[in-house]
C-alpha cells in the first residue's frame, strides 16, 4: 500500500511476487513525511491557536504572545460564553435540530435512492434528475422565495420549519451519493430474499440497509457536518419575534462577533468557536471504526 507510487528502483526490488508488501525506506518517503508534517501544521495550526486563545482573557490575548500558554486553564471564558452569550442554549438547539434533520434526511434519502437504483418504473430518470439538479444550484438562489413560502406555511421561526428545510437542502447530495452506492451492491442477496418471500419494505430495511452500512454512515457524517455548519438557512428561517431564543449555534457565534463591542468579546468568541468543534469529536468517537473503514476504503466511488 505504502509503496504504491514508489520509484522504479524500489519497486523493481519489491516486484517479486513473494514480497509485495515489503516496505523500504527511501528518501522520497522522508520527503513525503516532511511535506505532510508541514501541511499538518498548516491545517491544525489555526485550530491550536483558537484553542489556546479560548483559555486566555482579553489582556493575555492582546499581550502579543499568541502561542504562549495561558496563565491558568480556567474555564471562565467557556462559562461566560455558555451562559452570558447564551451559547449553551444555541448549542443545544443545534444538537436538537441536527439530530432530527439528519435522521430524516437519511430515511427519506435512502428510501428514494433505493427505488431509484433498484426499480425500473416510468419517470425514474426524471425523478433522479430532479433530485440531483439541486446540486447545481447555489443555496442563496432560493432564499427570498423560501422566506415567502415558510411564511405562508406558518413555519417561520419554528424548529419544524428549519428541520424540513435542512432535509430538503440535504437530499440532493444524499440521493446522488446513495444511488451510485446502492448500484454497486450485489443484487443476488436481495433477489434471494425476494424468492424467500420477503416483502419490499422488509427487504429494504433488513437487507439493503445493513449491506449499505458503510455508505450510509459516510453520508450520515457528511450530513451531520453539513447541517451543523448551516448559517444562511437558519438566518432566513429563524427570524421574527423571540427568534433569538431559538437560534442555532452559528447564529449565536455570528451574533457575538458582529453585534457586540469590539474589545470585550474576543475571549468569549474564541471559547464559542472551540465549542462548535465539540460535536465533531463526539461524532468521531462514535463512528471511529466506520470512518476508518468506510471513508478511507472506497466508500466514495
Amino acid at each position, binding site marked *: 500500500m505504502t509503496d504504491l507510487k514508489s520509484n522504479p528502483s524500489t519497486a523493481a526490488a519489491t516486484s517479486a511476487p513473494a514480497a509485495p508488501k515489503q516496505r523500504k525506506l527511501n528518501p522520497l518517503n522522508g520527503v513525503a513525511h516532511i511535506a505532510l508534517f508541514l501541511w499538518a501544521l498548516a491545517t491544525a495550526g489555526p485550530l491550536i491557536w483558537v484553542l489556546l486563545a479560548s483559555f486566555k482573557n482579553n489582556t493575555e490575548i492582546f499581550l502579543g504572545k499568541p502561542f504562549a500558554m495561558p496563565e491558568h486553564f480556567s474555564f471562565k471564558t467557556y462559562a461566560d460564553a455558555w451562559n452570558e452569550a447564551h451559547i449553551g442554549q444555541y448549542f443545544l438547539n443545534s444538537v436538537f435540530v441536527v439530530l432530527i434533520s439528519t435522521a430524516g434526511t437519511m430515511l427519506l434519502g435512502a428510501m428514494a435512492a433505493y427505488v431509484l437504483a433498484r426499480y425500473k418504473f416510468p419517470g425514474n430518470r426524471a425523478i433522479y434528475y430532479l433530485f440531483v439538479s439541486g446540486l447545481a444550484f447555489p443555496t442563496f438562489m432560493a432564499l427570498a422565495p423560501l422566506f415567502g413560502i415558510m411564511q405562508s406555511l406558518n413555519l417561520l421561526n419554528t424548529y419544524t420549519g428549519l428541520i424540513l428545510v435542512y432535509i430538503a437542502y440535504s437530499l440532493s447530495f444524499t440521493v446522488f451519493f446513495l444511488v451510485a452506492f446502492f448500484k454497486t451492491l450485489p443484487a443476488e442477496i436481495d433477489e434471494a430474499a*425476494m424468492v424467500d418471500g420477503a416483502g419490499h419494505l422488509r427487504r429494504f430495511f433488513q437487507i439493503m440497509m445493513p449491506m449499505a452500512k458503510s455508505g450510509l454512515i459516510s453520508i450520515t457524517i457528511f450530513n451531520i457536518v453539513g447541517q451543523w455548519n448551516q448559517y444562511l438557512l437558519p438566518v432566513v428561517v429563524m427570524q421574527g419575534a423571540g427568534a433569538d431564543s431559538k437560534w442555532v449555534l452559528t447564529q449565536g457565534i455570528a451574533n457575538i462577533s458582529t453585534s457586540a463591542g469590539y474589545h470585550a468579546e474576543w475571549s468569549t468568541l474564541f471559547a464559542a468557536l472551540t465549542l462548535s468543534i465539540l460535536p465533531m469529536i463526539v461524532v468521531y468517537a462514535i463512528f471511529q471504526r466506520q470512518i476508518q473503514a468506510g471513508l478511507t476504503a472506497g466508500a466514495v466511488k
Partner: protein
Amino acid sequence: MYAVDSPTTPAHRAPVGPGANEPAPRRRKRRGKGDDVVLPWVLSGPALLLLAILLAYPVGRMLVLSFQKFELKELWTGATPKWVGFDNYTAVLSDSAFWSVVQRTVLFTAASVVLTVLLGLGVALLMRRVGRVVRMAMIIAMMFVWALPALVQAQVFKMMTDSDVGVLNYLIDKLPGVEFQNHSWFYTPTQGWIVITSCVVWAGIPFLAITLNAGLTQVPKELMEAATVDGANGWQSFRNITLPILKPLLVIVTTLSVIWNFGLFTQNWVMRDGKPEPEFQTLATYSYVQAFGQNKYGLGSAIAVLTVILLLGAMAVYIRQMFKIGEVD
C-alpha cells in the same frame, strides 16, 4: 455499474411477487406488478414532496420574480407585482458593477478550485506513501477542519489576520527586517482576496484529500507494479494509470468545488463584517445585497438567475458527466 442492477429488474417483473407462497397465480401477478408501480412512488414520495415545496418552488418563484418589479412597495402593500419583461436583466447586464463582480467571482473560483484540487490531490498521493498511523492522524486532523462551519472558518481567518491580535502579523513580524505590526490585510483588495482564498482552500483541501485518498485505494497494485517492471517512471504511471482511474472521482469533486466556490458567500461576508465593500462582492453577496439590502427583489432574482446560467453554461459538460455516474438507466 449499470450491470449490477439489471438482474434485479427482470426479477421484479417476474410473477414471483411478495406473496410467493400463495397458490393463486393470477392474483400474485397482479399484486407484484401493482407494487412495482406504486412502491417507488411511496418510497420516494416524501422526499420528492419536500424537494418540490422547499427547493423547486422557490427556484421557480425566483425565476418568475426576475421578470417582475418587486420592491419595498410591493412587499408592504402586497400589491400584485408588475410584469416588466426583461427590464431587470437589461438593468443588470448594462451595469458595469455587475460585470466586475462576475469577473472577480470567476477569477476567485478558478484560482481557489485549481489550488484546492492540486493540493488536495497532492496530499492524497502523499497519504498513500506514509504509514497507517500517520495516515489516520492526517484524516482526523482534516476531519476537524472539514467539520468547522464555514462561518467559524471565516472567523478564525479573520482573527488570525486581525491587525491588532492577529497571529499572522505576529509571525511575519518575527522575520528579520520585516515590519508587519498592525498591518491591515483588507486595506487592498488583492491582499484581502489572498486571505479569503487561503481560507477557502484551507477549508476545501480536507474533503478533496479524504475523497481522493479513498479513490486511490481503488488503483490496482498489480497494474502499478506491471508498469514499473516495464520501466515506467513515477510520472508516467501516474499519468497513464492513476489519473484515468481517478478521473470520474476527480470530475465529481472538481465540479462540486466549482459549484460551491462560485457561490461564495459566508467567507467574504464574515470577513468584511456583513458589509462587503464593492471590491469584496461576489455574485452571491451582490445578489443578496440587491434583494435584501436595497429591497430590489426582482433585480436580486435576476442576478441569481444569471449566476446559475453562467455556472451551468461553463460547467454543463462536467455536471452532465457527474450526474451520469449515478444515472438511472
